[in-house]
């Protein structure tokens, strides 16, 4: 380990530091929220007992993970982002369920399915408008047939709810 850089800065560049930090934060949140529930005694445990204990345990594990990140010098991958970050694709994938909720709720299964597949497919870097539309159409036909007719999922196929 080179001593010229400050140890703190070196730590900041490590993935495990963030991993441990996230666990500490989660643990803190869980424990603090858990403390607002009744803990009870060991014999008659209240609802807050176990979650609070788990939160505290998570804090300690987080510290251990961060500390292990500090001591390890192996050449493991340390960057937080992958080599080629796919912000657009990630956005599309996360928006796809959102579109499904919105269109499915207000317009029914056909628009919901189409929007869900269409938006997700746009995330691929080789996607074309034509190919995406064809894929979304095919999946919609197949999906509606399977889930609505065959499996009887109670979701209107096509509807219009004016009150948005």
């Amino acid at each position: 380990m080179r001593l010229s850089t400050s140890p703190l800065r070196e730590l900041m560049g490590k993935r495990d530091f963030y991993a441990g930090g996230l666990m500490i934060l989660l643990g803190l949140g869980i424990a603090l929220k858990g403390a607002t529930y009744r803990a009870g005694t060991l014999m008659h445990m209240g609802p807050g007992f176990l979650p609070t204990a788990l939160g505290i345990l998570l804090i300690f594990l987080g510290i251990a993970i961060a500390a292990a990140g500090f001591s390890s010098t192996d050449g493991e991958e340390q960057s937080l982002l992958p080599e080629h970050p796919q912000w657009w694709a990630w956005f599309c994938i996360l928006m796809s369920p959102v579109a499904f909720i919105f269109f499915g709720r207000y317009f029914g299964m056909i628009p919901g399915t189409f929007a869900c597949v269409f938006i997700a497919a746009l995330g691929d870097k080789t996607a074309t408008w034509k190919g995406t539309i064809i894929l979304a159409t095919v999946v919609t036909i197949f999906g509606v047939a399977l889930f609505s007719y065959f499996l009887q999922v109670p979701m209107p196929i096509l509807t219009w709810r004016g009150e948005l």
Partner: protein
Amino acid sequence: MIGTALTDLWYGFGVAFEPHNLVFCFVGVLVGNMVGVLPGMGPLATISILLPLTFGMKPVAAILMLGGVMYGAQYGGAICSILLNLPCHPPHAVTCLDGFPMTKQGRGGVALGLTVFASFVGASWGITEMIFLSPLLVKAALQFGPAEVCSLMLLGLLAGSTLARGSPVKGVAMTVLGLFLGSVGTDLETGSERYTFGMTELDDGIELIALALGLFGIAEFMSSVNQVAPINTKYTNVGLKDMRPTKAEIKQAFFPMWRGTIVGSLCSLIPGTGPTIASFVAYATEKKISKHPEKFGTGLIEGVVCPEASTHSSVQGDFIPTMSLGIPGDAVMALLLGALMIQGIVPGPQLISQHPDIFWGLVASFWIGNIMLVVLNVPLIGIWVKMLAIPYRFLYPSALFFVCIGVYAANNDFFQVGEVAVIGLFGYILLRLGFHPAPILLGFVLGPRFEENFRRAMLISRGDILVFVERPISAVFIALCAILIGSQIYFRLRGAKADLEPADENAIGGHVPTELAPQRVSATPAE
């Protein structure tokens, strides 16, 4: 004792041969086999997608189908490894080492043929083990009080999180997180709400399907999108005739196959060591006892059949603790157990006596399913190979739709669809930070039962925490936990990685991140 087991098995075959059970078993293995071949889809995502479809089914049919998906996928994964050098599913990663060189020599068909056969042998052994060991385990487990159940769960959770791939501390952190997620919702004992933040939709807790599909569906799509290289199908022309091995090849494969089977079944007896570890250990053992270890990696038939037999024997063996104790060894088993719980069946040692149709039907269906797979795999391999060419840009949007509608169908509620997106984002962040999300599911499924038993144990002992070491059986489990943690620390201090076979794992070109890792640019061979 053997007599009762055989009678029960006979009864099981009766259940499994009921026409609709047979159909669902067939559907299960077929779908499993298919997704096993498809790069980028794994048994975990598939089982969670199919889970909502099983709500309307009888419990037996549901579990037969989901079980079929699981072992069907193992057969499919081998095809991917041998013909394409792509470790689609981690257990088959070692199969690539010798399988792909065989393909390059034009012997891929033989490798596949023998793999199918070895898989069948391994699976049969695992099933036999299940038939005779499960009732014994149950007999012991029925003596357990809450304290014993609690410490056994602790052991299972610890083993599941520390023996898996990656850093043990991170694994334990994920388990703890899973246990916490399991406590979200209404507290069963006191009825008070926990961590719902006023959302009534969370009163029933986090939906198992949303959690599984978020972690193993959406998070996985996010990490694979645009990272998947086009597949090289140069060597994939395999016909039926190519698959027939010569007599010499059968002879060469015979003993490695059995050795692999034994290694796999031994591995499955240790909680937490899934098929991945079993296959690595089997390959390493085979290499060690071989007369010509230097030839491994150049296309030796031993290097293919041994890990494959081991994988299958361990997959079936993993059902033993899941079914007889209610303690799953890995995330797939946790999901299957979750499926049973959704059907209203309480897992645990009483399962076999209360629901003999489920247990023995499942055991019998394993055999039927495995025979179906052998029959299916031989003529259908050509079709599977064609399916390999489906590009990822068609796969993941379609799969996303299945994720959305599957989660919706679970409760007919859009809230869960939002849940899956949030969990997916969180799961991807965890993946990037070097966590393996599988133990979350393990903790999540066991969480409520752990809490219940812990409370009961404390109530009985009047709040004395020492009860866990005072009762002998419980003390043994706690001691095993201590040994597990101690050995992890010991190996860490010695500088050796706790992984059983780190050298082999590195030889494949990096870790395969989670259950469903599809082929990545880095894992693609040079040619």
